[in-house]
Every structure is written in C-alpha cells, then in structure tokens.
C-alpha cells in the first residue's frame, strides 16, 4: 500500500480542481421568478381531464369533513377534474411545504401560512402566483373585508408584508380564545372570564377545588404561540401588538409584553397548568379537556367541532378577553391559512376556480354545517343561543366589527416561529425568566429589521 502513496498528490490535484470548479459558481440563482406576465385569466375551466393537487392542513375533525365534502362537490361540478388531496398536520405542512414548492412538481394549490416565515419566503422565491387578477374576476375584493385580504398580501420581493400583491384567500375565520367547561364553572360558582384577571381568579378557584385549571399540551410547539398570543393581546391591547407584529413600533421587551409572560409563568408556578406540557401533544390535552379534565383550554376556533362531539354542543363555552380600559375583546387570530396557487401550476384557471369554490358563500354554509367558522359569516346566520357555535360566531362578529383581532405572532420575522415556540417552552418550563423570554424575542426581531434595512 505504501508504494501507492506517491499517487496521493494526483488525488489531491483532482479534488482541488473540482473544488475550484465548484467555487466558481455560487449556489442558487437559477430559480425562475414569476414576474413574467401571467397571461389572461378566465372563469371558464378547461374541459380536459386534469388532476389538481391540493395541500391542506385540515386534519382536525370538522375541517377534515368539510374539505372532503367540498372536494367531492367540486369534482361533481367538474367531472373532468380530479382533486388529489394531501392533508397533513400544521407542523408537518410547515416542514414540507418549502421543499415541495421549490421542487419541480409542486402541488397546484397549497395552504400557506401568512407572515414572513412562510408566505414571505415563498413570495421572495417566486413560488406563489399573485392572485389580484383572480380576485377581481371572482370579486373576492368585495366578498372579504380588506382587513382580512391585507394579511394575505406581500410586496413582490417578499420583503414587506401587508402590502402589494394578493397571494391567497382564506377559507376560515379564526380566533384564539378560552374554551371553558360550563359544568365546572357552575360548580365553582363563576361565570365565563372577561379579563385576564377574571381568568386568573377563576383558575385559583378551580385549583382550590382540586380541579386542574388549564390543560395545556405543547409538544408540537405551535400551541405556545397561542397561549402567549391570547395573554399578550389581553394585556397589551390591539394597537400595541399589531404595531409590533407589523414592525411599526414598539419593542418585545415593553412592560406589557413582559407582564404577559410573567402572568403565564405565574400560572405555572401556582400549578394552574399541568406539568410536562412540552411533552404532551396538543391533541392529548384537547382530549383531556374534552373529557372534563380541566376547567379551561386555550386554543383556536378550529377546535369547535372536536369539542362539540366530545362534550356536546352546549356543555362547552368559548370566550375572549378584554384588556383593561378597552371596549371590545382583543385576541389573536384572523383567518386560516391562505389558499394559494403555485407559480409552476399549469392549471391556474382551474386552481382559482377550485379556491373560489371552497371559499365562497356557498362553501361557507358547508363549513358552518360541519362545525367550522367561515372567514365571512353569511348574513342572517344565527346559531341557537347557548351553543358553542353561537359563542364563537358572536365573538367573531364582535371582534371583526371592532377590528381588535391581532395577527398570529409567528408572522413577525422569518425565524420568529422557532424563536417564539422554543421561548415559550423555556418560559413555561421555568428555564427562562419573563425578561429573558421577551429579550430573546426582541433579539430576533432586531436582527430581522436590521437585515431588511
């Protein structure tokens, strides 16, 4: 073997040439941008036999049923179109969508999360098709309130959110709030909390009565966003949070944001939240609340159908919290993930027809029938009072009217999802003080705003 050693220089030479060859061209830069003309659009859908692939995250009970029904109805209306559905959980969709979109055969229609981490990155890469032309064609501009449409817009370089082109429309409306077990609240002799202090007091009573106040499972990491989002909105108010997420003004280390974090940690310290939340899945904690395992549960309106079927339509209530001095409740939410068309899709007209079909007023009725909250409630919709559906619809109407819904916090920067979710696990796990938690958010935020110039 030793006699061969003199050939080593040769090998090194080959490797060196290869490396130099590689170094000559920087990675990337070959992606086609979608700034080319989009061509004319039409409501008339092809008569050819085609397959539309759609990716959604509607795995929760009611939304899954609705999506199946809507897809079947669409295929019935257009027998030449086959819908190929790929449905996966929110975090799995988040993990795979970037890879799928940048591949050569992306799906035609996808649900993209708003804000910088996802939609912003996709727009920047030219992966989504601007949909302003279809918005005009299908009159989405008058169907949706502008506040909702704005969340789905981006400048065409993906650098500025809430301005520029429209990249999708949402099927559902969403609010994150506090679900409560009516029987337990009756037993404690309290009514549904209206403020964060109410909630803390009620939780103390539950704890004293030997009932777990709040079921919280955060294995998936995204529930942390919602817990902090609800508390922060109720403490800091709509304007402050909105300005922060949209990078208008403010700092994550402002007093109210620290107070919100301290409030949550206080709940943990007093035993209001179950231990081990970072190892318990959201589904498991939801199921536990559904079986009467706790007085409260913080999550979004997308859990309506699951809780209705677990507990019955009138046994569970939904409430949102009003900040001190405010006239209307303020909470996190807005709309579900945006349904977008990928720029490589060969069937943009059919894709737009599909998106319209599953989001329009008729679809809204299907969504209501299956226990979901459509983005735009049909006029004259009035569910039986005392039901969970009524609670949700009332809150949604009130908050929409007052414009006091604040965006999901993970939209803030391209890395905020990870920073915030890890940070919340640290906060709840007692690994970070409220100050350290908010400082980690602020550090991420500053780096991002500096980067954007």
């Amino acid at each position, binding site marked *: 073997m030793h006699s061969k050693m003199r050939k080593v220089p040769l090998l090194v030479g080959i490797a060196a040439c290869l490396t130099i060859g590689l170094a000559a061209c*920087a990675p990337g830069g070959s992606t086609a941008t979608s700034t080319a003309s989009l061509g004319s659009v039409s409501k008339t859908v092809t008569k050819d036999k085609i397959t539309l692939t759609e990716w959604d995250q509607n795995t929760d009970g009611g939304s899954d049923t609705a999506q199946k029904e809507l897809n079947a109805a669409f295929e019935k209306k257009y027998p030449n179109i086959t819908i190929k559905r790929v449905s996966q959980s929110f975090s799995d969709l988040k993990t795979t969508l970037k890879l799928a979109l940048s591949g050569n055969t992306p799906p035609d229609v996808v649900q993209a999360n708003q804000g910088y981490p996802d939609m912003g990155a996709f727009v920047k890469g030219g992966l989504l098709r601007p949909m302003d032309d279809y918005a005009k064609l299908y009159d989405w501009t008058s169907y949706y309130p502008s506040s909702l449409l704005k969340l789905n817009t981006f400048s065409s370089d993906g650098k500025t959110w809430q301005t520029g082109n429209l990249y999708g429309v949402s099927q559902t409306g969403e609010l994150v709030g506090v679900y409560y077990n009516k029987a337990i609240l009756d037993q404690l002799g309290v009514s549904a909390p209206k403020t964060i202090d109410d909630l803390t007091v009620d939780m103390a009573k539950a704890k004293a009565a030997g009932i777990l106040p709040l079921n919280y499972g955060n294995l998936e990491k995204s529930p942390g966003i919602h817990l902090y989002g609800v508390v922060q909105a109720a403490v800091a108010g709509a304007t402050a949070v909105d300005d922060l997420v949209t990078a208008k003004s403010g700092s994550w280390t402002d007093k109210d944001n620290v107070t919100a974090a301290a409030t949550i940690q206080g709940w943990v310290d007093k035993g209001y939240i179950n231990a081990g939340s*970072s*190892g318990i899945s959201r589904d*498991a904690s939801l199921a536990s609340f559904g079986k009467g395992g706790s007085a409260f549960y913080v999550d979004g309106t997308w859990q309506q159908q699951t809780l209705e079927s677990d507990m019955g339509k009138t046994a569970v209530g939904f409430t949102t919290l009003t900040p001190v001095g405010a006239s209307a409740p303020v909470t996190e939410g807005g709309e579900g993930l945006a349904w977008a068309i990928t720029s490589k899709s060969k069937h943009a007209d059919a894709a737009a027809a599909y998106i319209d079909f599953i989001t329009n007023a008729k679809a809204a009725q299907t969504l209501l029938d299956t226990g979901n909250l459509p983005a735009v409630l049909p006029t004259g919709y009035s569910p039986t009072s005392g039901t969970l559906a009524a609670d949700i619809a009332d809150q949604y109407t009130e908050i929409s009217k007052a414009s006091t819904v604040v965006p999901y916090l993970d939209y803030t920067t391209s890395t905020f999802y990870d920073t915030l*979710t890890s940070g919340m696990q640290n906060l709840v796990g*007692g690994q970070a003080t409220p100050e350290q938690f908010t400082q980690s958010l602020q550090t991420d935020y500053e780096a991002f705003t500096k980067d954007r110039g």
Partner: protein
Amino acid sequence: MSTRTNAAPPAGTVDARARRSRQGIAARPAGTASRRARRGRRDLKGYLYVLPAFALFAVFLGVPTLQTLQYSFYDWDGISQATSAGLSNYVGVVTDTALSSAFVHAAVLMIFYSAIPVVLALALTLIVSRAHALRGMSFFRTVLFLPQVIASVVVASIWVSIYSQNGLFNEILRAVGLGDLAKVWLGDYGTALIAIGFVGTWLNIGLCLVLFVSGVGNIQPELFEAARLDGAGPVREFFGITLPALRGQIAVALTLTVVSALKTFDLVYITTRGGPGDSTTVPAFEAYNRAFNQGQVGSAAAVAVVLTIVIIIVTALINLLQPKDVE
C-alpha cells in the same frame, strides 16, 4: 436504528478485518489465498468494472460532499442568489448557543449510546463470560439484537408512548411506589435529553453484549486454564486475558455506538423536534432544520462539515484501540 455508515468499522481496520473474514465468514480454504492475491498483469479493464460504482458514488456522494464545504462559505436561503459569507457560518457554530449546545447534547448522548452500554456490557461479560457455550444462547442473541433492526421511526414512536403521562415508564414508577416522580419525561427540561439517551442505551446494550460474549468465545480456553494454574482469580483473569482479547470488539462497539450518537436525527425529529426549548437539539437536526426549514443553508452546511470532521476524528481515535498485531 443502524444506518449505512455505522455498520462498518473505521477505514483503518480494513486489513484486520480482511484477515478475520478470511478465517471466518468466508469459510473457504484460507491457506490457499495468498496475501497479495493480485495478479502481475496490469489490466486496464479494471476501470470498466469500477466505473459504474465510482460514477454513482461521485455524483451522489462525492461531489455533494465537496459542495457542502463550498456552501458553508456562503449565505444562502436555498431560493435566491447566494452571497459570500467568509467564515461567519463557522464562527456561528461556536458563538450561536443554539448550535454549540447541539454539539454538547450530542456529547451527552454519546455517554448514553456508547459509554454506558459498553461499560455495562463489559461488566456483564465478566459475569457471563462463558455464556457463549450456553444452550439457548442463540435465542438470547436474537432477542438482544432485535432493537437494532427496527426502523428508528418505529422505535421513536414506541418510546414516545412509553414516556407519556400514562406510559409504561410512569406505570412502573407508580407500581413501585414512586408515583410522585411520574412525569412526561420528554417534556421536562431536566429529563428530555436523558430520556432520548436512554433509548440509545436500550438500542445498543444488546449489540455490545452480543459482540463481547461472542468475542470471549474466541479466546482460546488454554489461556484461561494457564491463568488458573497460576492462581489467577476471576478479576485478574478478566483484566489479564478477557479485556485485552476484546480490544477489537470494544473498538467496533465504540465506533458503532459513538457514530450513532453523533448522527442522531430520526429519534429527535419524531420525539421532541429539539424541544422543550432547545434542550434536545442535536447537530444533525440543526443541519436539517436550518437547511430546509429556516432557509439558512450556509449555516446548515457549516454544521454538517463540523459534524463530519468530529465523526472522522472520533472514529480515528477509537481506531487506535484496534489491535494491530493480529496474525
């Protein structure tokens, strides 16, 4: 749980292994194989035989490995044009606590994947040193080795339920009156990493035991008899004969287990995705997450390069244990 690369011992052991398998697996008349079996005539046809394998290897493994090195000097989001980054990605591996702690976690995992199974298995080998001759040993070997062949995704989902609130682990604690200690093991900062490490112990203890017991079986009985005639007790016997004779097996066990600890990905991806907080992030997970989720391809490549270098250094160090004096 095993992956391609941890299945084979480090490159330096080639010759030792070639010799072993000549006497072992390849149960053919070993004496007739000359040590340098090469034929004198130079044969350019050899290139044709090697070309398909080498081409595939170069395109799908060799060149991308060099490219990883190249990527690590750029800032790239995976979508738009890359910009030169100098050494900043490598500086980040040291200064970014999320990255440096990932390497620390990998070191902790090495204790559970490697040190504990190897030491424990050695201690057990001292007791069951003659188990290789037991009736039913092949049954035990089969069972002890079984975890190695189960897909890591399945292993991960099994242990997620074992560590859950109502899972087996807590059931056992409650059964022995330690119910107060019950918790969600993967959700607790103090225990999540250890819980993942313990899965590694579960995976690898059987592997080490099987290796060592059969290694002892290879020691010539005369050695033990001679030692006993000299009045050696079991402890002296172990340190004087068994341990030196097992050097090769220990090196293999260390290589397999240490590399599997350093490369942990599937288990973390399925069980915790790095949580709670960042308490269970590992280099392979960070590389994946940064490259494909966070759009920090350059930083991910730097992590991958450092990880690769660490693996090469560690395997080379372990390799020093290999006996060089067989034959």
